[in-house]
């Protein structure tokens, strides 16, 4: 055995290969300049339309794609669907429409499999273009490390917001290609990561009435994650978690935090909650300024529960999903009163998950459930820990189903997570706990 001191070798990462997709030469030049100002990136190709993008992804196999949505010949949404169906690659889209009706386009891109969305660059005072470039590099870097999975195109079409008719839709009766995990299977699976001492077993959840198309949409999205799960160790099921964790007596609030990969995870989780789900639900999703209203509209379409944008002075309403607005921290006070306030200067992510969760820990205590979903960084871990210390049930998404196992890992490492679950198992556990005492 060698006795020489071991000096850990510095791990040099190869620059992330990025494909640019835009029909504007100006945009492509700017993006190339912005990315290649850092040695972390290498632009390996430029596509001028969606069709070129699909072909170049297949040929060049970039680590990430940076794409405009409005493209000639084949538009961005179709290109994303094709790429995610054939050669899944992390895609960051940028859109000029950050608010108003057209912002749903960007959310549709997320539904199609894009991992992040940013606003288009604008020249501004004091070199804001440089600040934009910094933010862009950070986002593309995160995206290049995201694990993405196949997204069959035909299935995605059904989750698009424009397919409005729901209860009467003839597709409603169509069986979902990927069935949810059976309750019996959940009940038989071993519980290996539940930390709380064993509690009386609850009956496994056997489903709940849902509008068929929405149920199908949920199962479709859920199916992707189930396939992506593979052989997973160190996680448990909803039934096992209910059996082994402590049971909240009267759940008033379910608080959910998410970042990269969050919109799809939220769609999976929230669309599985039934119309009679009683607790108020708060969602804090890291998202570029202006895109949150589009996210709200999209989730509202997918979910049985109404989905609204949070506003100061209002209360979190039972049976309603409230989404934190961008640019402010959403704090919950007594009687579930909402206050949206500017974040401290040094806070990196706004809205902050930690800020919301910590306020809920103080205001709601043990009558809350905290959930940290996929995302880069550590936001949410401290807040979830505070919630757990006040007696709340806390849940973290497992590694196998997380697009980025960053925030859930930070929460888990900190001891903030009571139940670590695959994404499809989280909603059944919430439903079970929301019912109150075991039957």
């Amino acid at each position, binding site marked *: 055995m060698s006795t020489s001191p071991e000096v850990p070798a510095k791990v040099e990462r190869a620059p992330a290969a990025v494909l640019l997709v835009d029909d504007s030469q*100006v945009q492509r*030049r700017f993006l190339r300049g912005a990315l290649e100002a*850092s040695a972390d990136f290498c632009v390996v190709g430029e596509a001028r339309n969606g069709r070129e993008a699909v072909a170049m992804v297949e040929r060049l196999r970039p680590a990430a794609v940076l794409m405009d949505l*409005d493209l000639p010949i084949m538009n961005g949404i179709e290109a994303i669907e094709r790429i995610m169906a054939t050669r899944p690659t992390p895609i960051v889209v940028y859109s000029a*429409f950050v608010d108003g009706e*057209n912002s749903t386009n960007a959310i549709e891109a997320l539904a199609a499999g894009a991992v992040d969305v940013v606003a*288009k*660059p604008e*020249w501004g005072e004091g070199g804001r*273009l440089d600040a934009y470039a910094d933010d862009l590099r950070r986002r593309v870097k995160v995206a290049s490390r995201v694990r993405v999975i196949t997204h069959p195109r035909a299935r995605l079409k059904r989750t698009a917001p424009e397919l409005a008719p729901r209860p009467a839709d003839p597709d409603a009766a169509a069986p979902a290609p990927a069935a949810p995990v059976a309750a019996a299977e959940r009940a038989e699976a071993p519980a290996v990561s539940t930390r709380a001492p064993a509690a009386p077993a609850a009956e496994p959840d056997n489903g709940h009435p849902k509008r068929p198309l929405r149920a199908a949409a949920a199962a479709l999205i859920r199916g992707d994650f189930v396939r992506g799960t593979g052989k997973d160790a160190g996680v448990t099921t909803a039934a096992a978690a209910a059996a082994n964790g402590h049971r909240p007596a009267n759940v008033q609030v379910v608080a959910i935090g998410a970042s990269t990969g969050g919109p799809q995870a939220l769609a999976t989780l929230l669309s599985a909650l039934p119309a009679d789900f009683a607790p108020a639900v708060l969602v804090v999703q890291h998202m570029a300024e202006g895109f949150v209203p589009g996210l709200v509209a999209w989730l509202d379409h997918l979910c049985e529960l109404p989905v609204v944008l949070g506003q100061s002075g209002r209360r979190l309403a039972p049976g309603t999903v409230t989404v934190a607005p961008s640019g402010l921290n959403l704090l919950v006070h007594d009687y579930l009163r909402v206050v949206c306030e500017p974040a401290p200067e040094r806070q990196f992510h706004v809205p902050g998950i930690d800020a919301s969760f910590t306020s809920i820990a103080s205001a709601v205590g043990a009558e809350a459930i905290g959930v940290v979903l996929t995302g880069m960084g550590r936001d949410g871990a401290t807040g979830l820990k505070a919630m757990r210390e006040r007696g709340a049930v806390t849940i973290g998404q497992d590694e196998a189903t997380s697009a980025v196992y960053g925030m859930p890992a930070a929460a888990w490492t900190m001891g903030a997570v009571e139940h670590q679950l695959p994404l499809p198992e989280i909603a059944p556990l919430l439903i079970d706990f929301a019912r109150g005492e075991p039957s």
Partner: protein
Amino acid sequence: MAGRALPERALAGLRDAFAGEVALRLPGMQSACAEVLATGATDAVQTLITHAHTLASSAAVLGETLASRHARHCEELLLGCAGGVVSRAVATEAAADVEAVSLLLAPWLVAA
């Protein structure tokens, strides 16, 4: 990640590219707009949307904020027309945007 300012050379390249884009897109935008006003043809509407979209984004990068706003307004107006059917009123309003963009970006044609 440590950020770095865009080098002047890169900015000069952006300006050159924008001048080229204006030289290409502005006449295309004007021509499509004239056709929309005359016939309301959906092909021309789509062409106008594409040019307006690209110029709006590029102008924003180069600091031509007002031109960018007019181009974006033109794009949004036309995107809001169900089935690509453009009323006379909308076509006239879009034409006013095209005229404003033309005036504001005319200096770039000289640069090209």
